[in-house]
């Protein structure tokens, strides 16, 4: 499949993520949008990795062909850890203020 389709897909996903972060105020949705952006990048990494693996330059030294895909696993692991911490924060937030609206917390200012 043409690499363009992957790029456009991940661009769409990333944009949806950004708009979600900017527009929504619900902490959980923002969190999900951040995940969406992470995964858009992951998708791009995998796509480029595959593309490079097919190119002639990498064929000469095949040892590097799947580096990016291994990277993606790292990102997923870190993202999982981050999600657990982030969700924990949101739970604590809900327990304290009974809302998950992020604008409500700007009272930390001053």
């Amino acid at each position, binding site marked *: 499949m043409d690499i363009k389709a992957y790029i456009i897909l991940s661009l769409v996903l990333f944009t949806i993520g*950004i708009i979600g972060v*900017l527009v929504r105020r619900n902490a959980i949705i923002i969190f999900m949008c951040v995940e969406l952006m992470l995964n858009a990048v992951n998708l791009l990494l995998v796509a480029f990795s595959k593309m490079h693996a097919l190119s002639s330059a990498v064929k000469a030294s095949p040892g590097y062909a799947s580096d990016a895909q291994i990277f993606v696993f790292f990102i997923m692991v870190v993202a999982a850890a981050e999600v657990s911490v982030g969700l924990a924060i949101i739970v604590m937030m809900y327990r304290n203020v009974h809302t998950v609206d*992020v604008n409500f917390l700007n009272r930390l200012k001053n």
Partner: protein
Amino acid sequence: MNNIIKLVWLIPVLPLIGFLINGLGRKALSKTLSGYIGSAVVLGSFVLSFLVFLQVKNGASATVHFFNFIDLSTFKIAFDFKIDQLSTLFLLIITGVGFLIHVYSTAYMHDEEGMNFAKYFAYLNLFVFSMLLLVMGGNFVIMFIGWEGVGLCSYLLIGYWYRNTNYTDAANKAFIMNRIGDLGFLLALFWLISKLGTVQYDDIFTTASLAKLSAKDITGITLLLFVGATGKSAQIPLFTWLPDAMAGPTPVSALIHAATMVTAGIYMIARSNALFSLAHQTQTIISIVGLATALLAASIAIKQNDIKKVLAYSTVSQLGFMFVALGTGNYVAAVFHVLTHAFFKALMFLGSGSVIHAMGGEQDIRKMGGLHKHMKITSITFLIGCLAISGIPGFSGFFSKDEILAGAYGHSTLLYSITLFAALLTAFYMFRLYIITFTGKFRGTHDQEHHLHESPKAMTIPLIILGILSVIGGYVGVPEVLGGHHELAAYLSPVVKSAEHHLSHNTEFMLMGLSTILVVISISFAWARFRNYSIEGEAKGLGSLLENKWYVDEIYQKIILNPLKSISAFFNNIIESKLIDGAVNGVGKMINYGSRQLRWLQSGQVGGYVLLMVIGMLILFFIQLFL
């Protein structure tokens, strides 16, 4: 020869030593001691100068090299002394008259406190040192050092009684006006250096190096040098400082503002005569300026009532005569008049000091009168001075003035007649001064009359010596027509080449006779007019114009000082406060305002930050991809 030339450095160094001793030890020295030291060092210089003179008068001259003052490998300024006939003559005048005035000062300044007394002698010694440096310097830079030195000492001594604001103002005026002239001198030096690459007299005044200068260069350099001379020698337009300089002690007026410093300009032009003889336009300007000054100052002197002011204007006028001589290329006559003028003007200043001393500080001649019977020596010597300056045959002034007049006649009849008229004015105002002061009835208070006395010996002896010199001083330059040989011209001939003017003997006799008759008429007129002098009311018309010194000071105030002040006010109020302050404060205000506006970006809303970040990234992408 060589032995004396080796010791020549001592001539200026002795007064310098005197200055250091008197200046540093002013608290420890007794008045008698500092007076002795101050006078002795100048006497030492005089003796040395005289020994040098004995060598030099046979035609020898030397340039003594000491060290390189400035050494830039391509351009050197040597610290040299030029010992020749011209400088030696000035050495004799400075140290000789200077010594007499030092002696006179020991008595005149006796009422000063010990510390100020020593300070006075320190300044006077420093002045003699600078003046000697000025005339002995072997190049223009050394001359300039002395030139500035005498200006400084003049300032210090005019403002000697510094508690009086008027006196310090007069000192400032003298200093500032001199600086205007000094600027001209400096520019002339730079011009010379840029064209010839040297300031050494020996190198400049050679035919080869003068040929390197274009006509424009020569006119420019000589004009700038002349500007320097107008400052120091009090010529139009820079003469107003000299009458005000009379604020200083009277011996100072005699030494600095009559006999020596003010003749520095004449020395400088006489020294550069090779250059000036090539610049005919400059010569014309010099004679016009000299003539105008002689006439203007003489006319002012007629109506002055301060004894020292009359003498001051007379000095300005006599300096004008010397410049007329310089302008007509008659350098020997100018130097001759410097010599005789040093004698009789110093004599008259010291005489006026003696009068002021007797009158208890009174300087207004309207309150004097009849002083002859109280102070005979002062009166007689003063009369000799008056006769000499008026140009009565037999007295020194006659010979030098006649030579100037003859030179002017050789140039043009108009020049001659105006110069002669100024000379008649001289005779008139000098005898007005003498008659009002020394004859008639005493017009002061009873206390003053009771107090009148002849001055002590330390004051009268210099008067007598100067009186004798005022009579015989002219016999060094008896012209051929009177059967003399003009020894002075012969003596100066290796250095100073005067323009030749050939007048027949009959013409010369006629000129002498004419000026003598007119001077005698002028004196008798003064005698008739002022014999029964009583205090006059307010002068009107021309009289008040003269009394107010042609309003020259007021004119300078109007056309130079006031515009300068308004320009300064403009710069202070508009440029400084609006433009410069505005720019500086504006930068501050702009930053303040800008930061107040930017503050709203720091809203604390995370969403806002993210939005800005995204926008920033988008802009970066846009720049990267499309530009």
